[in-house]
């Protein structure tokens, strides 16, 4: 008795679904859901330091890299390599880049994003002496050595003589630090 009743209900529901939908429509919606789901990770979302090597520079990079006001210099304490025969990304000839660095974030005014910046010191010659900047945003006291920029960060280089500092972009910060 009850099975007949269940059969009737099921049949009615099945027929009603079959009338309203098509099998291809169902496959289409499953496909769209799967592809939509698979495409989600591909959306242009910031991923901190995603991948190895130097990330692509931001499409908008306003300002003068030889000025202390330039956005990437927000936490710097030292001489800008851009003024010392190097660039934002490369050390001047005769110096080598310290692998051990001071890492912070700076906001790019053009796109409003926070970029993770590595302040690598270039070491091996005496102080460059040009374009000294001391902006110190998010600089911490010496008892927080990992985020104190008053230290000599020439660590792991042949020489500990500090010359100037570069500002490498490691990625976009996904959350405020």
């Amino acid at each position: 008795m009850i099975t007949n009743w269940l059969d009737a209900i099921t049949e009615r529901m099945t027929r009603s679904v079959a009338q309203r939908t098509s099998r291809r429509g169902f496959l289409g919606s499953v496909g769209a859901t799967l592809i939509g789901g698979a495409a989600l990770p591909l959306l242009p979302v910031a991923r901190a330091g995603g991948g190895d090597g130097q990330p692509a520079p931001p499409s908008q990079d306003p300002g003068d890299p030889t000025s202390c006001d330039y956005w990437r210099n927000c936490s710097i304490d030292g001489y800008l390599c851009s003024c010392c025969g190097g660039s934002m990304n490369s050390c001047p000839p005769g110096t080598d880049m310290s692998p051990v660095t001071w890492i912070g974030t700076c906001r790019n005014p053009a796109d409003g994003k926070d970029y993770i910046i590595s302040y690598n010191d270039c070491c091996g010659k005496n102080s460059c002496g040009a374009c000294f900047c001391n902006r110190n945003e998010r600089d911490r006291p010496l008892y927080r050595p990992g985020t104190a920029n008053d230290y000599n960060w020439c660590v792991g280089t042949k020489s500990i003589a500090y010359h100037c500092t570069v500002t490498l972009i490691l990625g976009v910060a996904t959350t405020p630090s």
Partner: protein
Amino acid sequence: MYRTEFPLLIAMLVASPFVTAADLARQDYILNCQGCHLADGSGAPGKVPNLKGFLGNFLHVPGGREYMIQVPGVAHSVLDNGRLAAVMNWVLENFSRDQVPPDHVPFNADEIGRLRADGLLDVNTRRAELLATIEKKLGVKAVTAP
């Protein structure tokens, strides 16, 4: 037919976590650890201990698990206990997966809070003792001792 699945896709987009826990742990590593331990965890010989292919060895010896959290760089981190636990688990998984014992239980916030409050006074001596035990038990030497 798109009447039904567009709202579904939009719901999935809205609900999708754009920043995963692993993304946050990776970023916390970059901003709080990478400056000295470097992007691949290899450190600087004679200056910064190597994590790569080694850190998990500490989990094989008594006191090693505790030491990993009691070292000043970890215990004094600005990260809260939960994020610190996530970073430590991320570091073990990404830099030293092959050394982590199979029965390893990941760190959680409570354990981190307890251990970091119990810091080390003489780090170098403790480290030397643990490295000696690791070498004796596992036959491996630290690549870069500080």
